[in-house]
Each structure stands twice: as structure tokens, then as C-alpha cells.
């Protein structure tokens, strides 16, 4: 065939076809999405520290294991209160002339998704300890440790953040203090929060299951009209990262719940207040400030009751179960 004997025509056709399709699936949709998407009204640009933290996140390749996208499927509902939308990424612009835009959506979820980690885990102290060595707070973690973002010093200067590392994870002598880099990286992580949609709602229904598995429909049948919460599971989700599966906390960082007088108090109003509003009453003993986990994570009275009763009855604790009315009363205060 003559056509296939002319290399200009043959290769010309191949590249023309490829360029046409490239325009259709890559160039045109990319340009259009650049043009039509704007940041949500409630979103804020990163501060200079947060931006520096984002650059550390990029430099250390965190995207290799952490996604930043809540997909529109029920499986991803644990990573955010709504699916990610295009506008969520509109603030990501080219880093500079040399480096591309970093939406950091990622393609591997070896570690948790971080779209909303600032809401889920707002404690600076926890993040610092976790960065120094993740296994100090989550023994099963396979995340790398980042000790080069910390320094050892005998005399921490005024305002330096001392990280209470348990002895078995400590390297070098003296106190371990966070460098500016570690604080910037944590600032960036805490800035990762989903922004409410413009109509004021934070939540938007996730798309239904593409293929409901028999197992999940069976469990739906068991569920009654009011949501049932498994206290152990909610504890694992919201509390365990700091207070540990043993309820013993971490010496010098997070106080134990096992045997804690506040937990064991017959009236649950104090513990309810701490979960919802945070607590700094034990900072003088060297413990970190407790963030208002219940409020930031929108914990319902029923889930709160499940958590409170779980910690009041585990690890040798034997306080009486709190009734839902007691919880509601405490919340009203």
C-alpha cells in the first residue's frame, strides 16, 4: 500500500490522531476546569507557615502514602463530611516557576486520607510526637519517623515546643524540641479541613453504593430507627490515637483514662464538657491541651453516650452507665 510506504504520511497520521485525542481528554478539560472553578467562599488561603508546611509535605513525598480526596462513595465517608469537589482544589496554583501545582490528591492510601485531618486530629502535641516517631502513638504504624525536624537540647529556650517522647523512642540526650520545620508541617496538617458548602451545610449525601454487598444489607436490617453506636469503635475513631487502646495514655503527653477520677465521677457532666469543649486543666502536670474533639467532629449525643459509657466501663473502670438524658442535660449546660 502506497500510504504505508510514505513515512511522512504514516507518522503524520499517527501523531495527528494522538494530538487530537490528547486535546480532547487532557488539554481541553484541564483548561476548562482551570477556568470554571473558584475557591469556596468559606475557604482561606494558606498562611505563610502553612504554605511552608505544605512545601515540606511535598519535599518529603508524603503524597506517596496519603491521599487528599474524599471520593463520592460511602467507603470514604470516614475521611470527611462530604465528597471532595473541584472547588476544593481551586486554591492550588503552581508552586513556582520550577515546580508544578500540587493538588496532592494522591493515588495510594497506605496511610489515612488527610483531606480533613485538621478536624479529625487537632492536637499539635499529638502531631509533633507522631512526626518524631509515629510508633510512639500508634504502635502498628509503618510511617517513617521524621527526627530530623527535631532537636535535642538541655535547655529549651523560651517558647520552644518540648515534645514529650516516651523513653523507648527517644534518640539522643536532653529534651527534644520541635524545629520550625516541624511546627510548619503541623500547621499545614491542621489547616487541612473541609470547608462548608456555600448554602451553609457541611454535609452532602454520598452517592449510593454502586454494588451493595449482601453483608451490608444484612446489617441494615438489624439497625433500628435511631442510630446505634458501638462505644469501642467510636473510642477507636476519636480518642484512641492519644489515650491509647489500653486507656493508659502516654506518660507526659496524654493522661490515662483508666482510673481517672474525672472519668469515674458519677455525674458525667464534666467528662461530657471535656470531650465537647476541650480541657487544659492538667497542663501544669505536663499533659497536652485536649482539643474540643466532640465539637469539631460533630459528635451526636448518642455517640457521645456510647463513648462515655465505654470509657467508664473499660480497663477496670466501673462507673455507672450514663443515661441519654444525663448526656443531654450536660450538653445543655
Amino acid at each position, binding site marked *: 500500500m502506497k500510504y504505508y510506504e510514505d513515512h511522512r504520511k504514516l507518522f503524520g497520521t499517527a501523531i495527528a490522531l494522538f*494530538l487530537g485525542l*490528547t486535546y480532547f481528554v487532557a488539554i481541553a478539560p*484541564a483548561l476548562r476546569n482551570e477556568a470554571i472553578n473558584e475557591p469556596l467562599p468559606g475557604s482561606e488561603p494558606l498562611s505563610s507557615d502553612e504554605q511552608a508546611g505544605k512545601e515540606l509535605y511535598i519535599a*518529603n513525598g508524603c503524597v506517596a502514602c496519603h491521599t487528599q*480526596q474524599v471520593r463520592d462513595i460511602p467507603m470514604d465517608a470516614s475521611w470527611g463530611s462530604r465528597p471532595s469537589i473541584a472547588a476544593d*482544589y481551586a486554591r492550588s496554583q503552581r508552586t513556582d516557576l520550577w515546580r508544578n501545582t500540587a493538588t496532592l490528591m494522591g493515588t495510594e492510601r497506605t496511610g489515612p486520607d488527610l483531606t480533613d485531618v485538621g478536624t479529625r486530629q487537632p492536637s499539635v502535641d499529638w502531631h509533633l510526637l507522631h512526626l518524631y516517631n509515629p510508633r510512639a502513638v500508634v504502635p502498628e504504624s509503618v510511617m517513617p519517623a521524621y527526627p530530623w525536624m527535631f532537636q535535642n537540647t538541655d535547655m529549651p529556650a523560651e517558647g520552644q515546643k518540648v515534645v514529650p517522647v516516651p523513653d523507648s523512642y527517644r534518640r539522643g540526650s536532653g529534651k527534644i524540641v520541635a524545629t520550625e520545620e516541624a511546627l510548619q508541617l503541623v500547621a499545614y496538617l491542621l489547616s487541612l479541613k473541609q470547608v462548608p458548602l456555600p448554602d451553609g451545610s457541611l454535609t452532602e449525601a454520598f452517592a449510593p453504593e454502586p454494588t451493595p*454487598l449482601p453483608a451490608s444489607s444484612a446489617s441494615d436490617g438489624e439497625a433500628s430507627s435511631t442510630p446505634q453506636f*458501638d462505644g469501642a469503635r467510636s473510642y477507636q475513631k476519636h480518642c484512641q490515637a492519644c489515650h491509647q487502646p489500653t486507656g493508659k495514655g502516654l506518660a507526659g503527653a496524654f493522661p490515662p483514662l483508666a482510673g481517672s477520677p474525672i472519668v469515674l465521677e458519677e455525674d458525667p457532666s464534666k467528662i461530657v464538657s471535656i470531650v465537647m469543649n476541650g480541657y487544659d486543666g492538667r497542663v501544669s502536670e505536663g499533659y497536652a491541651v485536649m482539643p474540643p474533639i466532640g465539637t469539631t467532629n460533630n459528635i451526636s449525643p448518642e455517640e457521645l453516650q456510647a463513648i462515655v459509657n465505654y470509657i467508664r466501663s473499660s480497663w477496670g473502670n466501673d462507673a455507672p452507665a450514663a443515661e441519654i438524658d444525663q448526656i443531654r442535660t450536660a450538653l445543655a449546660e
Partner: protein
Amino acid sequence: MHFNLLISVLASLWTEPGIWITVALLSLAILAAVAIAYSQARPRNRTEFERSSDSPRSAPTGGLIGNVDQSGKIHYLPSKKVGLPRPKIEPQLGRLVAWHIIAATAWLLFGTTVGEYLGVKFVAPDIDQVSWLSFGRLRPVHTNAVFWGWSSLAMLGLGYYVTSVVSNAKLHSFRFAWITFALVNLAVAIGSIALMAGINNGGGEYREYTWPVMALFAAGIVLALINFIATIAKRSTADIYISNWYMVAALMFLVTIVLVAYLPFWQQGLGETIVQGYYMHQGVGMWFMMFLLGLTYYFLPQQLNTPIFSYSLGILAFWTQIIFYTLIGTHHFVFSSIPWWLQTVAIFGSVGMIIPVAAGSANFLLTFRGSFHKVGGSYTLPFFLVGIVFYFTGSFQGTAEAFRTTNEIWHFTDFTVAHSHLTMYGIIAFFLWAGIYSIGPRIHGQEPPQATVGAHFWMALIGLFFYAVPLMIGGTERGLAWKSDSAFIESVTLMAPYWLWRAIGGTLMWLSHFVFAYNVYRMLIANKTSPASRDLQLNK
């Protein structure tokens, strides 16, 4: 309660079409491995015994022992057939190809040593705490070194040879070829150091080198493209052999995707993600796969000493590969916030890939028709056969992964890591080794030792199975655990045994590369008047 849920989810595994497609595909690959093992172990037919006993090594050389006549005796470990006696490659081209193979091998050793270390880090995360060696920085060093260093250099080296042979013309410019060689090596060296130092492009997979680094690489590829086209332009055949279609297309497409992905003045917001999906998948499909298909259309018939089964099937596969493959990039972002229609187009394209993959693999397998008995007596053909089987199974697995139902479970898990190794290693690396073992002995007339080629083959193949199968099982379990809403950390602990198996399989693969490097040394570097080479001279 959640444990029960997990059990019932696991029990419903078999109702997932993707799962049984994958199991079927995998059993194909395992069956092929068993078949190759059988053909290698089987006593060979008589003519080949005669051939091996003709070897001058067993010829009488004097003395009592030397006078024992070995001809006619059965050899329990028969020697493999050496390359058909053909003229040596002209020294100028031979030197160019040899250096490409040697440099590619060096990058393979470097890149997979890094990969091996990364695999170990899943088992022992505190093995070091050095910033330059931390997981997030090293992972792209591994992927980019084996992509742009090992695979690309080996492809170019073999490609220079193939394009000039099938054009029946001298390579247009050796100067250009050497400049390309230097630029590509320079890009990978600088890129690797920059990544370890924490300088990268912002997170897109295989796009971690910054544009100034990738510009070196792209400049090299542009020179290679000119070199290939100019060689083809002065061909002394009327036809353009199909190998040249695939290789020139691959070079043109690589230049295109690098330009689209790296021009430093666009891709704000979601535009970056759309281009990323396009870039990462065109990189593997339109550069590595396309070029390798071109090489295989030359080397496979040459090694079988038979024409390709159907030239037309090759043409069909060429055009359908361009039409469908170009569309599939965004299947890496299914359910994300990129436009739904674009995701659907990608899934459509992934299904369409059945056409070129079936056409290509059927074409290769049918070229084997009537020659399967040759597999047992050859040390290059098993590599081709593995490459073809993984081309078929690995590519279909990619289609199976692209559907929304399967993507939901497998995406984000180690299943995709298994898939990328089944393809980039099972297809690309095995085809490259097949090509290198085909051409290597003809450069200085030195055959690699048969035993170490066999060791390389079996360690790489068994290692790949040990690497990929546990990751696929673990990845599936992990996806189902996420779906059953169990705690995230439980999905980490459930992976621990699979990560250990991956490290074991990876170690086998990694060690096989040192055996391969020794074979390259014996073919291309060792004393050029070694006994092996004298044998070959005598054979002629």
C-alpha cells in the same frame, strides 16, 4: 460484629467479577510458567542432542581422557542453542548498543536496590531515620530510575539496532545517539539526587523530576526521534517495517506527553490532576509498551526464525492502541472530583484496550505456532513467552481494575502496586531481557553462561509471583475492610504478612538482577577472546 462483617464480605468475594477475572488471568500466567518449566526440563529431541554434541568443547584434544568420544551419548543437562550464526554487528553500532545495555543494567541495579530497600521499610519502618532515605523521597527515586534509566535506555539501545536493520540502512547519526545517551543518563542521575534532597515537582506519579531535569531527558528523546526518522527516510526497502511504526510513534508520543505535562505555565487546580492522569498512563502505555511492541515485532520472529503471523493484526493493534489508550488516563481518578464524563470516557477506553491487547498477544502467540518445541532449547524464547503472557494477562487486569465496582475496592491499595509490577516488570523487563539476550552475544560473539541465564529467568519470574500475588490478595482484603468500615489501622495490620511476602519476592527479583548483570558482563565486557567466544567462532 465487624469481624463477622469482614468474614461475610470475604465470602462474597467470588461474586465480584473483577476478582474472578483476576484469578483467571493469574492462573494463565502460572500455567504458562509451569509449561515453560516443563519444556525446559523435558529431554530434548534428537536433532538437538546431535547439535550439542557437535560442540567443539567435547571434541578430542589429545590425551587419554580427551580421546573419549562423547558424540552419540545422552547429555542429561543439554546445552541451549546459541544464536544462529549471523554476521557480527558492525563495531560502531555494537559499541552504541553495548553501552546502552550496560548503562541500563547499572540503573536497573540502582533502581531495584532502592525498590528492595523500600519493600524492607514496610516490614521495618525504623531501619533508618535519615531524611535522604525516607520512604516518601526514595519511592520516586525507585520508580523514575527503573522507568527513565533502566527501561528507556535499554529500549533506545535495542531500538537503534532494530531500526537500522529493518530499514536496511545505517543509523543516521551516531553523534546524536551518543548525545541522547549522555542526556538521558544525566537526567536520571540529577533527578535521583534532587528527589533525595527533597526537590520535586509536586507529587504527580512519574512526574516527580522537575522540568529542568526532564528537559534534559526530553531533549535526548527529540534527538533520538530525529535519528530514527532520518534512518527510516533513507531506508532501502519500500515498506516501513511495523517495528518502526511502533518505535517512532512511541518517541513522538513521549515528546508530546512530556511537553503537555511539563510546560510550566498552566495546570492550576484540578487541571493538574486531569493532566496527571493523562501523563502517567500515556507514559507507560505510549512510551514503554508501544516501543516494546515494536522491538518484539522484530526480535520474536527473528528468534523463532519465522515470519510474524499476521502483519495486518499488527496494524490493527497499532491504530486501536492509539485510539483507546489515549483515553484511559483518568481511570486513576475514578470517583474523584474530576468531571464524571471524563471518568466514563476513561473506563470506555480501558474496555476498548481489549482489542489491541488481544490482537497483539494473539499475533505473538500465533507466531510461536509450530515452534513451541523451540522454547525448551532456547534461553531467549522463555523471556518472550513470559512477556507475551503478561502482556495479555496484565493488560486485561488493567481493564478489570478500571470498572467503577472494582476500582472502588482496589484503588488506593497495594493491588495497583502489584499491577504495575506485573506490567512494567512482567511485560517490559522480560521483553527487554529477551531482546538483550538476543542481541548481546552478537556484539562481541560472547554467549552468557547458560546456567546463569536460567538462574536469572527463574529467580525473576518466581520472585514476581511472590511479589504480586500476596499484594493482590492483601490489596483486595484491604479494600473490602475499608468497605466494611473497619478501623483504618486494622487495614494496616492485616497487610503485614503480605508486605513480608512482597519483600521476600522482591528480594528474589532483586538478586536476579545481579545474575543478569553478570551475564551482561560476560556478553559485553569480559575478555573478548574467552573460550566461549572461541567456541562461537568455531561454530561458524
